[in-house]
């Protein structure tokens, strides 16, 4: 057993913390949260220069040859600092899909551009129900004159408003097995008939509605096997769940750190409120939740990274962390009192992300049911 980060991961963690605290101050987070785009070209470019977009991808596509576990370390820090923008959509959702299912040419072209920071991409998966089951896929693609034609509406597509391309998951065959007959298409965001509408959400992360009306996609842009897309999506959803958990771990850690330092400074009844056991016990519960979340998430990330069966580990991590980050954020708010409930304060940024993170890629109930299945129930 080796339950510590290696030297490079420690270095990555440290340099990411330093870089983000300087280059992504909360002022910028607020501006981007409140903006339409949610994207800072300047920050994006600097992150690309550090090689972050290519961190988990092979060197032959311009990546750094790192692992999903390395990416987890980075996402932990990105969650700590709440980095707005399409990093998750581009790297986790799209990059891994291309890596797993893309043709050599698609990888060279598109994954290469992702690694260099020259392309923003996202995954348009969920339909009107917003659930992660293949039966709920309601967009369709039909073959027509050497092209595919896509129709339907995609909901809660992250960062579609700034994406250059999107990977659209559509039904291509009606089947008694809903996992059969699903295909993935690489679609130019400027395609005729494709319309992106930014959704207003409590998380202020840029979720969009993408409507597709007779959108033509060249045959070359099929990613992976025709009708065989769902196994790829299942694998991507596992990675997305563990990566989102890593972001939430960072967010929970930041909430704890902020609340503890406030409890040391804020004086009421002639003493720092942190001297009251009620507050101390809140903090104790928070640190326990943060550490548990981190270790269970890193175990899931390691398992997935090693290519071992990881359904159980990933679902455990996402279920636990979804609940735990919320618990931590709520307790932090309780410690901050009324000031934490204002727009001027940073705490609400984390409270929003906790809910958004919980919903994304399966909430706690969804993943507990997965665990029940894995238990053989």
């Amino acid at each position, binding site marked *: *057993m*080796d*339950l*510590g*980060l*290696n030297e490079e991961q420690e270095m990555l963690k440290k340099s990411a913390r330093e870089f983000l605290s300087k280059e992504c101050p909360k002022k910028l987070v607020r501006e981007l949260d409140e903006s339409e785009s949610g994207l800072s070209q300047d920050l994006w470019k600097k992150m690309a220069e550090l090689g972050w977009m290519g961190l988990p991808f092979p060197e032959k596509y311009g990546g750094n040859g790192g692992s999903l*576990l390395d990416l987890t370390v980075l996402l932990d820090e990105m969650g700590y600092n709440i980095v707005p923008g399409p990093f998750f959509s581009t790297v986790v959702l799209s990059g891994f899909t291309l890596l797993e299912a893309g043709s050599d040419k698609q990888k060279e072209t598109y994954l290469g551009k992702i690694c260099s920071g020259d392309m923003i991409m996202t995954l348009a998966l969920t339909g009107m129900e917003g659930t992660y089951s293949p039966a709920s896929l309601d967009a369709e693609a039909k073959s027509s004159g050497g092209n595919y034609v896509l129709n339907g509406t995609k909901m809660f597509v992250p960062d579609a408003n700034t994406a250059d391309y999107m990977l659209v998951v559509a039904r291509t065959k009606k089947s008694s097995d809903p996992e059969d007959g699903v295909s993935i298409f690489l679609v130019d965001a400027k395609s005729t008939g494709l319309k992106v509408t930014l959704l207003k959400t409590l998380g202020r992360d840029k979720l969009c509605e993408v409507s597709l009306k007779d959108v033509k996609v060249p045959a070359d842009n099929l990613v992976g096997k025709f009708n065989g897309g769902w196994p790829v999506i299942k694998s991507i959803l596992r990675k997305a769940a563990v990566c989102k958990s890593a972001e939430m771990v960072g967010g929970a850690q930041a909430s704890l750190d902020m609340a*503890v330092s406030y*409890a*040391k400074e804020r004086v009421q009844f002639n*003493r*720092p409120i*942190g*001297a009251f*056991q009620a*507050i*101390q*016990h809140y*903090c*104790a*519960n928070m*640190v*326990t939740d943060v*550490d*548990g979340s981190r*270790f*269970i998430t*890193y*175990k899931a990330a*390691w*398992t997935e990274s090693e290519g071992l069966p990881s359904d159980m580990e990933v679902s*455990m991590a996402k*279920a*636990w962390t979804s609940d735990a980050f919320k618990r931590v954020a709520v307790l932090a708010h309780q410690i901050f009192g009324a000031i934490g409930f204002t727009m001027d304060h940073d705490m609400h940024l984390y409270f929003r992300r906790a809910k958004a993170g919980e919903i994304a890629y399966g909430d706690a*109930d969804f993943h*507990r*049911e*997965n*665990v*029940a299945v894995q*238990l*053989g*129930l």
Partner: protein
Amino acid sequence: MDFRLSEAENKFRQEVEKFILAEMPQGYAERDLYWPGGYGAIGEFEIRDPEVEKFRRKMGERGWLTMAWPKEYGGGGRSFVEQAIFFDIVSYHGAPGMDVSTLISGPTILRFGSEEMKREWIPRIVKGDLKFWLAYSEPNAGSDLAAIQTRAVEDGDFLVVNGQKIWGSGAHVADCGWMVARTDMDAQPYKGTTLFIVDNKTPGITIRPIINIDGFHSFNEVFFDNVRVPKANVVGEMNMGFYYLMVALDFERLVISMGGFRRRFEDLVKYAGETKRNGKLLSRDARIRARLAELAIDIEIAYVLYYRTAWMMDNNLFPNIEASEIKLVTTILSRKLADTGLEIMGPCGQLWPGSKYAPIKGRFALGYLDSLSAVIGAGTSEIQRNILAQRGLGLKRK
């Protein structure tokens, strides 16, 4: 990172499992009603069973009772991760294993005791010959251990002890008390306390049983009336007892029955998969599925903290926070496992061990009562949270 057991760790795990299955006293696992996390139904705290003694000595011969001690003192020179693996397997099979003497007294003597003391006590502890009981708490000194009033007054080569201890689990079946008493009444309690070993056969000791909520005799109250303890039994320096005690807490960090949780959870999953209610298997009920999944995740959280703590100890990192976290998490889990189990079982769940229709031999009914003790013994949840906040996060007491 690598969450897998290494080849050597895996081999050790198999070796321990094979030994337990072959050598465990006949019917012991059936008789032993130990509930993970609880203190009320630990077989070894109730009676001294010659078969169990024999089994422990066999473990001692393999160096397992003291496996994480240095080799020169008869230890196994093994890692804390290996010790964690050992506990996991031992508690999974409900086997007897390490106790106060091997987990607390021995390591403290090795660290602070004189050479003479080491020669006197260590070999017998290594072999599994000695049983100790913890003489810490007093009627007026529970969570506030510094408030102890039992006195030990120097008289030539002896300490003369007067006072009362309470809770002393298994004092009536043990050989010696591992005891703290006040030796300097003028000093601050933290600086006026001495740690020593007291032989149970010394005149002036009276042991009275306290029957716990499970109906078992594990606790005792113990009275000391002019009990003369040789000064050679003092551990380390006079008046340093509290310091040694705090350090000794490090040694018991990994005393968690992880395997016991795993085993009882497996029982519950099996029960849900076999039992029908209203013509439907319990395992098909959405609420029961969710609750079992929740328990599985709670157990996994405990496991990651458990191995992380062991790994930190092996790497000379100080698992201050992690140790309190795991105590907190597992003892809450002890209650939740019993409570959730009984709720899943419905009316049959309340049937006591020995009842004909009791599911899982009534272990969960007993566990429901026993789990009250988990969050209280060895530092209540509140004390753990104080430690986490004050020592871990640096919040001030005043």
